[in-house]
């Protein structure tokens, strides 16, 4: 078993790759009552076109299959629902789908092994019928409609639509009512059989655990032992430029919401991702963070009342930065941010600002280890990007002001910037 230790947060992670290809990761945490388990597959909403191992022709499926599977896996052949079974054990089960993975999880304080039986049973035993697939369409339809009423979702989805033409992050993870209607049990089985192979999956355990024991217990419960070949995923090529610079929608809201998106025109090398991510977080904070000169000015001019939130999202096929918030003058916010970026390019980043923001990022990376749920989700998400989460703390010192200045030039380009507004 591989053991990686981080001396700053004083934590360890144990990693074992099983014969059937499944990766098991254990993050022991002493002195807490909670235990957290995630079983995730590298299959998300963007995986709609692929070649099944052993085949030649391409398979294309409607949008929303990964999420549909997430809903349907709980249903068992004997008529029970694993969500119910787990709930009856007093554990807290859940599942979620992202652009690049689907995760099944539970949090518990007691009944850990009975719950593990159930988790590993339902994920390995799909049961889809015409009838139960049809019923699920009603529930998923309601879920999609529920998100339709969230202005935050609309302004965010519109930003992605303005940036991306062909990359399927521009549609909701759940798909649309139309695409969901096209899904049937054969499609579900086909995708399940392709993507729910142990070699495409990771299991993550956080809590008071003995790593060797966990590996044995997992092995006992695994039924699939054949390791399949590589799944070839086909992503349409994405133009470098954005689709449109501005997008606007209307909704009953009190103050306009906006998202400024910066689409990267160059996908980074995997080994550089972490360093670059840290630099971009520092840059976003330098440009418009709560101690920035620009935020102070916009606040004093009454253009902004609340701090903006910033994030950087990336996978193997896309990467973008977002700045979002609320203002009566979103256009003005955009103009001023672009001016500030230009100024920082011309005059260089202030040394003191850089060091302070970097110090803050250190705090954020350490704090991420407070809670086992956050730890588990972070490690799983990073794993599918080819990253070990400890790398953020390890690489932190390597990010210099000069490096950040270079990233500023490379990433923050006016022609790659879009504005999405809901008012």
């Amino acid at each position, binding site marked *: 078993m591989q053991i990686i230790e981080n001396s700053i947060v004083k934590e360890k992670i144990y990693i074992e790759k099983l014969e059937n290809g499944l990766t098991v990761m254990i993050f022991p945490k002493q002195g807490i009552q909670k235990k957290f388990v995630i079983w995730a597959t590298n299959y998300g909403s963007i995986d709609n076109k692929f070649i099944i191992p052993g085949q030649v022709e391409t398979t294309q499926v409607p949008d929303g299959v990964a999420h549909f599977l997430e809903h349907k896996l709980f249903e068992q052949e004997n008529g029970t629902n694993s969500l119910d079974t787990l*709930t009856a054990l*007093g554990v807290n089960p859940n599942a979620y789908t992202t652009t690049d993975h689907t995760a099944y999880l539970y949090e518990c304080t007691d009944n850990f092994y009975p719950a593990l039986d159930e988790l590993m049973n339902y994920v390995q035993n799909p049961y889809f019928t015409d009838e139960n697939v049809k019923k699920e369409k009603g529930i998923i339809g*309601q879920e999609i*409609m529920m998100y339709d009423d969230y202005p935050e979702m609309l302004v965010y989805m519109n930003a992605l639509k303005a940036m991306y033409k062909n990359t399927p992050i521009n549609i909701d993870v759940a798909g649309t009512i139309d695409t969901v209607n096209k899904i049937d049990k054969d499609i579900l089985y086909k995708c399940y059989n392709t993507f729910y192979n142990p070699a495409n999956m990771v299991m993550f355990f956080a809590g008071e655990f003995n790593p060797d024991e966990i590996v044995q217990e997992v092995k006992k419960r695994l039924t699939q032992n054949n390791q399949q070949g590589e799944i070839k995923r086909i992503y349409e090529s994405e133009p470098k430029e954005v689709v449109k610079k501005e997008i606007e929608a209307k909704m009953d809201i*009190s*103050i306009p919401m906006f998202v400024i998106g910066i689409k990267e025109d160059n996908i980074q090398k995997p080994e550089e991702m972490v360093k670059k991510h840290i630099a971009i977080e520092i840059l976003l904070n330098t440009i418009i963070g709560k101690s920035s000169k620009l935020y102070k000015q916009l*606040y004093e001019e009454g253009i902004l009342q*609340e701090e903006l939130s910033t994030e950087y999202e990336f996978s193997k096929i896309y990467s973008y930065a977002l700045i979002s918030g609320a203002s009566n003058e979103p256009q003005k916010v955009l103009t001023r941010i672009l001016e500030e970026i230009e100024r920082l390019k011309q005059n260089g980043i202030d040394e003191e600002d850089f060091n302070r923001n970097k*110090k803050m990022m250190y705090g954020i990376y350490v704090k991420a280890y407070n809670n086992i749920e956050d730890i588990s989700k972070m490690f799983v998400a990073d794993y599918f990007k080819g990253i070990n989460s400890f790398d953020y703390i390890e690489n932190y010192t390597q990010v210099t002001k000069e490096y950040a200045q270079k990233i500023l030039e490379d990433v923050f380009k006016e022609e790659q910037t879009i504005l999405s507004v809901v008012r």
Partner: protein
Amino acid sequence: MEYIAETIKEGIKVHYRNTKKYKTNLVTVFLTVPLNKQTVTKNALITSILRLGTKSLPTQEEINKKLEEMYGAEFNCGIEKIGDNQLLKFYIEVLNDEFIPKKEKLLQEAINQLLEIIFNPVTENGSFVRKYIETEKVNLKNIIESKINDKDQYSFERCIDEMYKDSPYSIYKYGYVEDIDKITDEELYNQYQELIKTAKIDIYVSGDYNQDEIKDIIKNNPNIQKLPPRANIIEKQNVENDAKVVPEINSRPQTIEEKMNVTQGKLVIGLDINDDNKYVLGIYNAILGATATSKLFQNVREKASLAYSARSVYVRQKNNIYIRCGIEINNYDKAIPIIYDQLEDMKKGDFTDEDIDTAKKTFISAIKAIQDEQDEEITYFISQELSGEKPDFDEYMNQINSVTKEQIQDAANKISVNTIYFLTK
């Protein structure tokens, strides 16, 4: 569990929670006052002004720079409503010294900084800084008006509003837009002085630290020293049902329908409860709608496929249950009878021992889990503090375990629908 509370002056309590579970230390200060229409808006405004500047760091920029220097100490403030009280909450979270490159006594610094923000704001001409008052008035207006952005939460608040018309519990925690402009600078500052003189003050320090050292820091803090002792102004949470609207016999329950541009209808049903055993009602609520095996989730969502969300919440402090569903607008007439059937089933005792067992396990697990979440644990502590109960997790679990089927069915028969609120297109 290592938890000690100490009254340092009448009405001012420090709560120490020693634990090694986290990378951080968390300090939370609550100023608690009874909800009151005259002061609620002013208090909300004061809270957001305080975060902008202290005598020593008079701008937000300076405060934020200082926080960033402290390895990104997280500071924020907000308004909470617990029972009939308004709580002004201020917190700061810093890394434990063990996880920073060199020891810096971050916790001590954080406590002093937080107290400075609350009790020593920058002033001019006998009030807060004019510019801050102006911008925060706009900000508060936005916050109050943004209530409509989250249609789910909005519907929930509206149902409470209609159910508790004219009683303090209906007061919105951030106050009222129409009152904002009327507030003069002088009134505002007077209210601030009144607030720090009279509010119940609770300071929670959670993390890995030396208690004596922290005790000294707080007791010797000049901002704490200048605070006068104060009488207890917090009434024990009264759960009198007469505070609620009593619909006329022949128009019971009251039904309210509102229109807005929504895709999905939001249904909220407020229940009257004539029983005060909180443990029994907690279990009743779990069986009715708080888990994936609950009656509402199973029948409204899984069997009838009418909703994605179908659940009920128990508001312990007010002893109240609300049923909340997001349904297709045309399905209102289908959903209501199904929901009523569930309430009837509960009355008839149409639930199994397994349902009770599941509810208990879910509860116990949640209680245990609270103790692994720094912020949630403090939220639990303060709500216990305000209802005059000791924060004793073991006692809580024992009480839950002793609930019987007879008690649940008995409670079910003392429950009726008070208000049906529907947000539709």
